[in-house]
């Protein structure tokens, strides 16, 4: 017979939430590496490099993440690599996060005033040196609130990994809903767990934003 939705199930869901966090963490680390590369290409001095980054961003932002995940899932299989679902999910989410973080960080780099570039040129710094010692340190400050804000999107969108068979919070919710036949209670609990994680991140993003505007004003 059916089980009744109980504390044990909530425990199982919370355990699965750790996998959601792990998957989001992997996607954010991978996305940071990809995003940094995309942002650098996007502000590079060579037009073809800028175009490559632009096309990449356009394609990823113009395709649903779910389709990207399927392409990552079947694409790795096609290449003959037998991928466990977590690798496919992490790869798809990394492609996705790279495009968005790339755009966010390009904006941050470009928000640093022209005067800073002129100043570093006057000091005899070349492009990589200016980037490293003058522009990026200032851009990072600007980029923190939107980056934390974007991590909310990653946590939420990692739910789609359940469709390619990775057992994270949403997939665990499906399993429990199937076993208990109490989908409303189960999915509301799942939603509540996401809500706690995501509002904490949203709150952190707003707090960083406030602190940033406070220092900018003084």
């Amino acid at each position, binding site marked *: 017979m059916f089980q009744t939705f109980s504390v044990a199930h909530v425990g199982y869901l919370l355990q699965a939430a750790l996998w959601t966090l792990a998957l989001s963490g992997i996607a954010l680390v991978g996305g940071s590496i990809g995003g940094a590369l995309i942002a650098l290409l996007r502000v590079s001095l060579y037009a073809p490099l800028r175009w490559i980054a632009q096309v990449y961003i356009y394609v990823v932002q113009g395709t649903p993440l779910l389709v990207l995940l399927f392409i990552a899932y079947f694409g790795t299989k*096609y290449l003959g690599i037998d991928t466990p679902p977590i690798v496919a999910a992490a790869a798809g989410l990394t492609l996705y996060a790279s495009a968005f973080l790339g755009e966010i960080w390009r904006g941050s780099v470009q928000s640093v005033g022209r005067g800073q570039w002129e100043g570093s040129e006057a000091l005899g710094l070349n492009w990589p040196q200016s980037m490293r010692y003058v522009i990026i340190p200032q851009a990072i400050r600007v980029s923190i609130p939107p980056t934390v804000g974007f991590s909310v999107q990653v946590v939420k969108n990692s739910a789609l990994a359940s469709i390619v068979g990775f057992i994270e919070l949403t997939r665990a919710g499906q399993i429990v809903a199937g076993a208990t036949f109490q989908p*409303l209670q189960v999915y509301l609990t799942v939603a509540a767990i996401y809500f706690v994680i995501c509002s904490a991140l949203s709150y952190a993003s707003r707090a960083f934003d406030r602190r940033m505007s406070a220092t900018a004003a003084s």
Partner: protein
Amino acid sequence: MSYLDFSGTFLRANLFVDAAIMTIVLSAIATVLGMIVGIVGAAMRLSGNRVLSAISAFYVELIRNTPFLVQIYIVYFGLPAVGVRITAFNAAILSLTFYAGAYITEIVRAGVLTVDKGQLEAARTLGMSPGLTFRHVVLVPALSAIFPALTSQFVLIMLASSVVSVISVPELTGVANDIQGMTFRSLEAFLVVAAIYLALTAAFKGVYAAIDRFIFSYRYVGR
């Protein structure tokens, strides 16, 4: 490692056409209904009534901090469990509308806040009637300020509609899934569907850019 073979996928092109129409219909309905929810939500938030404002704020936070996929499951599997029967299509429309409405609420609210009180006073000084003031000083400038954000949100609604494939609505992603089941050429089916989404995104952006030029033609005067 094998070669890509699109033949089976292309043979079923007519299925993709129907599916693309379904995606467009879903997004159009959700966009229009989402605009209504968004305008009501923003009006509630800015009404000055504490209860209405809190309800609107809570709604926006709830939707924005939970995955769309879980929202769909709550509507499609949760509601029938408490006795509300709903078809997959209606569940898709309902969840997409409330999802879109939350984001549109925030955008519309920001737009209304961009209108400076001094502008209203200036319009009155110039002897403009309340109707003229609303149209030329409030509505058009506010819309013009939020138009880019609003239309990118509309594109995001179209992309988000892919997720309703999980409750078997025959839109693009769902049909790609069916086709890969028939042809066993999974990667090909999803590459084709990705290209269709890209084309739809480009088409949506083009249409919105044309509308932008039309409504806010005054911005382009003299260029």
